[in-house]
């Protein structure tokens, strides 16, 4: 493998590697939070970390960032409908 090849490879692999590092770091945060339970409302922090991880996978690993708008809409569609399902069901469960 020549130097140019390595450079090419790194140019293409930079985003996946960086997202990998970020995901591992975020996972570490969540694992530490889960193992130590530093405060009562820790689930809020954990949820935020999960949202970050999900966004990283969607935008970087699955390349939604660089896709045309149509694909971006579809990648968001499922999450929006998930919110409908959760929201409307919880309206019942939280007010019974």
């Amino acid at each position, binding site marked *: 493998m020549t130097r140019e090849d390595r450079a090419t490879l790194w140019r293409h692999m930079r985003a996946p590697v960086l997202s990998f590092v970020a995901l591992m770091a975020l996972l570490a945060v969540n694992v530490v939070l889960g193992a130590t339970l530093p405060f009562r409302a820790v689930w809020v922090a954990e949820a935020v970390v999960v949202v970050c991880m999900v966004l990283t996978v969607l935008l970087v690993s699955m390349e939604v960032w660089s896709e045309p708008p149509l694909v971006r809409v579809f990648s968001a569609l499922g999450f929006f*409908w998930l919110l*409908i*399902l959760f929201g*409307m*069901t919880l309206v*019942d469960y939280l*007010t*019974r």
Partner: protein
Amino acid sequence: MSPLDSLYRDPDTARITLDRPADYLHAEHTLRSWFFTTDHKRIALLYLASITGFFVLGAIAAGLVRLSLVVPNGVIFTNDTYNKLFTMHGVIMVWFFLIPSIPATFGNFLIPLMIGAKDLAFPRLNLLSWYVFMTGALFTMVVLIVGGVDTGWTFYAPFSTTYSNFYVIPALIGVIIVGFSSILTGLNFIVTIHKMRCPGMTWFRMPIFVWTLYATSLIFLLGTPVITLALILLVMERAFHIGVFDPKLGGDPVLFEHLFWFYSHPAVYIMVLPGMGVVTELVAAFSQKRVFGYRFVAYASIGLASITFFVWGHHMFVNGQSQLASTVFSFLSFAVAVPSAVKVYNWTATIHKGAIRLDTPMLYAMGYIGLFVLGGLTGLFLATLAVDAHLHDTYFVVAHFHYIMVGGTMLAFLGGLHYWWPKFTGRMYPEAWGRVGALLIFIGFNVTFFPQFILGYLGMPRRYHVYPPEFQLLNVLSSAGSTILALGYFFPMIYLVWSLWFGKRAPANPWQAKGLEWTTSSPPPAHNFLAIPRVDFEPYDYPIKAPERA
């Protein structure tokens, strides 16, 4: 304008099929060429044949239910048989007939034709979805006939998970499998409509039928997985007693209802939206006039498909749902009236000052509008909280949803079947018989189901095998109507089959209708068009036009 373009614009209505190269029906004749076809048109016919079979079975079950209800003391069938019969009727009609009816037949056949594509985006997936459908449907069918399930089509826990017989499990598995078929069909349509449109076919040049099927496919895609999961949990609950729906362990049967109706309410729009699409085509073609407010009608389709996901709780006003949730769901249900009203009033405005021909498809379309309006507005009655507390689970509900599903979907299906029959088969159906059949079905339907509104208001609960004697008169009337309805169904079944051999040869465009599907021969060739069409005209550019705006 090139000569080819003018051909698409003003197709030669007199052109006959005979002088064409072999069409999709006659390209090959082996069984293999049917069962391993990837041609969307042949797959559509496979669906048409299979759902017709399921419809007949479901209709027989319905007939037996109506027969049983002629007498109030329930001596004709035992209680168990009666429960199995209405379950069979519901499961078959909802899951195996109404949901796939228009999308899998007309949608499959017409979407590529209407948007100028050679085929759907995934032809092999399309064939697979038919096999998946048949596997699940036949499996459940065998279970329903051999074993018998008595849960009703809604499979409510904890009755289905604890008390009903063991056959619930295989029946559910069949329904789950059929769900995958819907998902694959919806996925195929969505991708096709996004990506396979021919040059010049912009979104606002698509026929309304394609818009409604796009909306329907969204529901397939976004709703079906949730019911799949709910039914998987139900199977698990039944087989392993996992407890999520079992109050003895702290589980909540109302949770099943939430998951169930999250799909099953939108499923009503899976049935209704394509019907609206068909009727829009029919109204425009038989009035020879542009659809009034095309854009609003198109937006209304997407609007309906979205709003419908916010209203499922109106099935649960008296089911132990919180009062706030009920009120919110009730309010949102009224919002459904907005896009529905657009459709109905715009159809009326389209008919206004058209050149109207009352051929069979138009008769069905007009019947549809009337019945849909009644069904829709009685739906608003049920969405009103205090009214639902009285009418919930009575025959009023039964009448309401039959007005939507039979009066709506079934009439649109039959109307569309007559309208596109020449395109499907290359033969005309006999017009006079068609009109008699349409009239019989309309009368039979109303005699069957209108009395049920009164029965419900009087307080007769649904799914009753033995009922108080004061309800007998109306029940007899309803059963009598169902025989007229059944007779009406016989007409198209017989003359359409007859026309396959003896019908007049159909020209490419027997109705002088607009739309790309009428520019190709009847029946179309294997890849739909001899050359890829190019569109530079608006949809529904019928001769009767409003004067251009100054």
